[in-house]
């Protein structure tokens, strides 16, 4: 009883604090430029503390969801509700936002001179509201409130994307981003309205339950999937992603790619918690789209020269992997193979966390490179590991993790999905097995392609010798920009080496989708084995290192130029493998899906001494071209063509009236309407 009292009081207290923090965000505009960051930090930390407190409460302590009266809304009270799923996502969001904001301090320093007070304030304000809106998206269940914060999320991120508004390109991208987000919102809106009209239940997530019990869920779910999928960036709904991420400042793209697109995943998961029957086709839909996203995403990533664009495409790929997990999970429910459900969902949800970690790490490090070299085109880089060793090593860590290589975290989530697949091959029927075959082949392929891509990007940026003089001025970034890398790196290691720790929260989250979560408990010994193996691996490496050190102590070590096959006149900068040439053989294989244009003037007939030539490749995204750009351009040009009503001649204006009158009169008299 006493405990209850205390908790209720506490809950009131922290709600109050939360609301105060929200109100205090507006104070940013009044604060001088150089203190805004600290004000932001204060608010961020307080928000993080409170929300994490709630999240931990409901994820680890309470058994049932946390429900707090938050604010008056539309004449009645609006509650925030935190169940296991929300709690998990809240923790993910908070961690990434925190690292992002720490990173921002160093990253924004150059802008402090260029931007005026209000602009900076707006930036920090939007960053705060990006976090707040994400948290509220996770907390609200009322549909209208949800939609509002959903759009707030889009707006704040939009304001963040157009931060470098000096570039004309940025604005264009920003608008496209805003519009596509808005379209997503519309789809979600339609889905809610459809469910509402279908069932006449409450206009909220709870209202869906009733609808899904009484109707075939596919139609409404499809609307939801499109709406949330645009945010998540499933192909072919992805076209905002590869533009918005590069345009945004790196701490923002880190957060956007790390957690914001996961809100789409959250939405899909949230909706799935209310669907309990006729899941097979839903599962197949998710799985198919996810496989396409995974493979096409990474393939498109391979051909990019812009490092942040490349990373953006990798986000699509990872969303694909998450989707594969979810899809398999759903199919598992449909065909009643609990192990597939459990491990599929578990893998997906863990991958959400993992991706948020290594993707933000990669974006931060890439941002550091950009800050130092002012170029995102990797063809101009090279040999940076000597200039910025810390950044390079963290980038490598991120790369290894994102390729799902042991002993890092990416491997764990993929491993869960794999073992889910392999365990359910036996119980599965023919259809299931074929699906599983396709999915694990897809996963394997994605893994391989990811390795291909990241060997390329890492070695082109950091290894070899510099390809242009932009590298010359590069220095290691200041420590505040290394700290977040450290934090994230630590998390990656922890998940990689001690995965068993994360099983119980995962189990509780997965519990929302299926009752029987026993099979995830069975994973614990296996995961322990994995951590042992990882340990052994590291130990081996250490041992060999020492061995070699000991062996080389006695021997003499020489420094000689790289073997150029006897050709000594080589220019180390130019006679290297470039990103383009590295990607070329994939491009050859995947001509139909990647249209890469090569600008090159072929040799003329009898051209003995060829004059100087330039060779350039441009890759464009067919999905985007054919599904987004061409149609929208067509519509707008069409609008412009038929916009002939404002002629400036009075007679025409009256003519409309006359025609209107006569036509309506006639059809009225004839009782047509």
């Amino acid at each position: 009883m006493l405990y209850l009292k205390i908790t209720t009081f506490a809950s009131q207290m922290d709600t109050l604090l939360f609301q105060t923090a929200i109100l205090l965000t507006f104070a940013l505009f009044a604060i001088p430029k150089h203190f805004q960051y600290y004000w932001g930090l204060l608010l961020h930390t307080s928000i993080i503390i409170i929300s994490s407190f709630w999240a931990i409460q409901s994820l680890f302590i309470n058994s049932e969801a946390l429900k707090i009266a938050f604010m008056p809304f539309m004449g009645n009270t609006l509650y925030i509700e935190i169940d296991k799923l929300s709690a998990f996502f809240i923790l993910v969001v908070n961690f990434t936002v925190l690292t992002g904001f720490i990173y921002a301090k160093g990253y924004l320093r150059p802008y402090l001179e260029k931007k005026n007070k209000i602009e900076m304030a707006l930036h920090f304000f939007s960053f705060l509201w990006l976090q707040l809106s994400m948290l509220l998206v996770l907390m609200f269940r009322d549909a209208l409130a949800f939609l509002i914060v959903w759009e707030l999320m889009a707006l704040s991120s939009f304001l963040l994307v157009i931060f470098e508004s000096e570039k004309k390109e940025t604005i264009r991208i920003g608008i496209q981003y805003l519009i596509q987000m808005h379209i997503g919102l519309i789809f979600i809106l339609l889905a809610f309205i459809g469910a509402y009209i279908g069932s006449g239940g409450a206009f909220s997530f709870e209202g869906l339950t009733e609808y899904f019990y009484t109707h075939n869920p596919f139609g409404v779910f499809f609307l939801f999937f499109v709406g949330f999928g645009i945010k998540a960036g499933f192909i072919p709904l992805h076209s905002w992603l590869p533009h918005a991420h590069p345009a945004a400042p790196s701490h923002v793209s880190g957060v956007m790619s790390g957690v914001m697109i996961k809100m789409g995943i959250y939405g899909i998961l949230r909706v799935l918690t209310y669907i309990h029957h006729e899941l097979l086709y839903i599962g197949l839909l998710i799985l198919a789209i996810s496989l396409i996203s995974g493979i096409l995403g990474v393939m498109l990533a391979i051909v990019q020269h812009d490092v942040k664009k490349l990373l953006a495409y990798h986000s699509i790929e990872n969303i694909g992997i998450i989707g594969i997990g979810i899809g398999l999970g759903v199919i598992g429910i449909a065909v009643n193979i609990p192990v597939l459900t459990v491990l599929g969902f578990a893998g997906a949800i863990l991958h959400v966390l993992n991706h948020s970690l290594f993707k933000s790490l990669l974006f931060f490090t890439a941002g550091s490179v950009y800050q130092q070299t002012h170029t995102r085109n990797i063809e101009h880089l090279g040999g940076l590991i000597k200039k910025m060793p810390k950044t390079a090593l963290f980038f490598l860590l991120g790369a290894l993790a994102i390729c799902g290589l042991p002993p890092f975290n990416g491997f764990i989530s993929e491993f869960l999905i794999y073992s889910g697949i392999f365990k359910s091959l036996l119980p599965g029927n023919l259809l299931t097995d074929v699906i599983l075959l396709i999915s694990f082949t897809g996963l394997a392929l994605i893994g391989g392609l990811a390795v291909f891509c990241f060997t390329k990007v890492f070695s082109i940026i950091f290894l070899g010798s510099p390809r242009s003089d932009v590298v010359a001025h590069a220095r290691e970034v200041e420590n505040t920009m290394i700290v977040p890398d450290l934090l994230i790196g630590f998390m990656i290691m922890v998940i990689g080496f001690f995965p068993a720790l994360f099983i119980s929260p995962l189990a509780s989250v997965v519990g929302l989708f299926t009752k029987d979560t026993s099979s995830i408990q069975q994973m614990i010994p296996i995961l322990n084995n994995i951590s042992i193996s990882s340990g052994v691996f590291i130990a081996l490496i250490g041992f060999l290192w020492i061995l070699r050190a000991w062996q080389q102590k006695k021997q003499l070590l020489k420094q000689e130029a790289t073997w150029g096959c006897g050709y000594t006149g080589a220019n180390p900068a130019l006679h290297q493998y470039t990103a383009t040439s590295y990607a070329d053989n994939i491009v050859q294989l995947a001509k139909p899906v990647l249209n890469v244009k090569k600008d090159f003037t072929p040799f003329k007939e009898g051209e003995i001494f060829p004059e100087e030539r330039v060779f350039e490749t441009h890759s464009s995204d067919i999905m985007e071209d054919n599904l987004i750009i061409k149609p929208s351009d067509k519509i707008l040009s069409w609008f412009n063509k038929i916009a002939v009503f404002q002629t400036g001649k009075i007679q025409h204006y009256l003519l409309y009236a006359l025609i209107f009158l006569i036509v309506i009169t006639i059809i009225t008299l004839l009782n047509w309407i």
Partner: protein
Amino acid sequence: MTLLFIILYAATLIYFALSERVRMFVVLLSIQGALLFGVVFFSLYKIELFDFIFILIETIMVKSIIIPWFLNKVRKHNNLKRVHEPFVPVFYSIIVAVISLLFSFLVSNYLKENQIHTVYFTVAFASVIFGLYFIIIHKNLFSHLVGYLIIENGIFLFSLTVGSVMPLMVNLAILLDVFMGVLVLGTFVNRIGNTFDSIEIDQLSKLKD
């Protein structure tokens, strides 16, 4: 007897379609005013002095003397050409005038009401539609003004068709409105005539983006 006037009124509409001279428009307007007086006068059952005076003012004074006079001033001030080619050849205009008559006749047939005199209604409706048409086919503001007045006359006829249910005050308001309207519009026409080098409407089509 009233019927005669109405028919004549209809005839004036045809004439409007027929004539291309600006002076003719004004004359026709004043004729219409006179005709309207006739219509009202003969449709009154018993003549009360006040009503009579009011009608006299409304029709003879305003509609057939003051306004035409004012219009003439405007016309002179803007020294309009005598003849004005409308967009649509006269030939078709006549057809349209006739069609508008027929159409309104049909319409009035549709809504048979003991409440209203069909003939009034027909002509009134026709004159409104024709007024609109008149504005649409003419290029210069002056003719637009004329068209507006045709419409107003039509409305006057309408108010007769519905019988005397209009409160007097409102009736006054309308009269005032027409009067004001014409004055204001007329002055504007003059102003435009001064500012632009003619009162053709293609002078006035800057605002079209």
